[in-house]
């Protein structure tokens, strides 16, 4: 699979690196190239794209962390039901922007709608077996 490594280039004026204005995760996520044609199953395809969006603090994907409660598809709009690990998660905006950035990179997605949900409350029980395995390899128990 080919991957796109986002550039990390300083701005000429010495301000924030240019990638910060387009990709708030700082370019760590590795995204596949956009699909060349609309997928047969947009919901399934959206789940696949979300697998490329990592939690900003823990290098496993949002679905693996159990933060995605649902994906819906309606007339070109990808609707993502998202929760957070904590009510004051400091990465809320990063996560929202990373989801939007990744999904809007696809030409077949006209708009992204993120619905914040808190029911049921997230606990570490929601981390998938794949996510746990990755965390274990990183020396993190969950």
């Amino acid at each position, binding site marked *: 699979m080919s991957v796109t490594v986002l550039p990390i280039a300083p701005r000429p004026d010495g301000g924030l690196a240019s990638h910060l204005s387009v990709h708030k995760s700082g370019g760590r996520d590795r995204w596949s190239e956009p699909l060349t044609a609309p997928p047969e199953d947009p919901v399934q395809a959206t789940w696949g794209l979300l697998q490329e969006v990592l939690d900003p603090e823990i290098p496993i994907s949002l679905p693996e962390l159990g933060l995605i409660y649902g994906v819906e598809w309606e007339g070109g709009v990808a609707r993502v039901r998202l929760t957070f690990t*904590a*009510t*004051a998660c400091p990465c809320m905006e990063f996560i929202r922007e990373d989801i939007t950035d990744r999904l809007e990179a696809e030409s077949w997605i006209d708009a992204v709608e993120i619905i914040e949900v808190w029911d049921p409350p997230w606990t570490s029980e929601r981390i998938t077996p794949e996510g746990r395995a990755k965390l274990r390899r990183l020396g993190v128990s969950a």
Partner: protein
Amino acid sequence: MSDALDVGSLDRTQRDALRRLVLSLADSKRLMGIRYSDWLLGSPSIETGIATSSMAQDEWGHARLLYSMLKDLDIDPVPIEHDRASEEYASVAPLDEEMPDWAALVAAICLVDGAMTTMLESFAEGSFEPARGRVPKMLAEEEFHASLGSAWFKRLAGAGGDAHRLLGEATRAMIPDLLAWVGADDGPARAMVEAGVIGDADGRVVAFRDRVRALTALVDVDVDAVVPSEDWDPARARSPGHPSEEAVERARGDRNRALFVE
């Protein structure tokens, strides 16, 4: 659990009562966060400083979710959060001033945060859908606050001397206002009970006393014998007074006003 409340069917009196309830909880959470943040540095250990940092973060997260419930009443939460004067804040009275010592903060963790948890448990079991959906996460986070507070309360109570005395003084000072707040039974409070938004006053008071009885006994305070404060401001559902100007400036985010992104 009650049937879901149809907010659109509420009359003006009921809507005002629901607004008062949500603001009372949200403002208390926000001020609780500030009181935790006062101890990020200067608490008894690095670990407790980190704990107060985490708890401050939690409280502001809870406040954010509570303020956002005002949208269900067609009220914009942004000016509520950032433009009110201290006299308009509905936070519980024990949070008005900075805690004078660590013992007072420990008392606040158990008693003030405990009173808020009592109210939120009742709110989560009521008919207001946003509370049903959002409050359980807050309660899960509050379990850690209660655990830390309880451990410290027992430690200070058992230490004797000034630690025991200061903890007892703070406990005695806080409980009357908290009993009045948890046990609010005026017109707006009853309207919320009748609408199924929250449980009845007697039940809430019993739950609060059950929550703190064993701890307060450690500093020779019989919570069942404490008389609730009689001073009451019905507009804000709290005792008269208001949080300090310095605290409200922080609550409103005055220093960062030019950077608001909401």
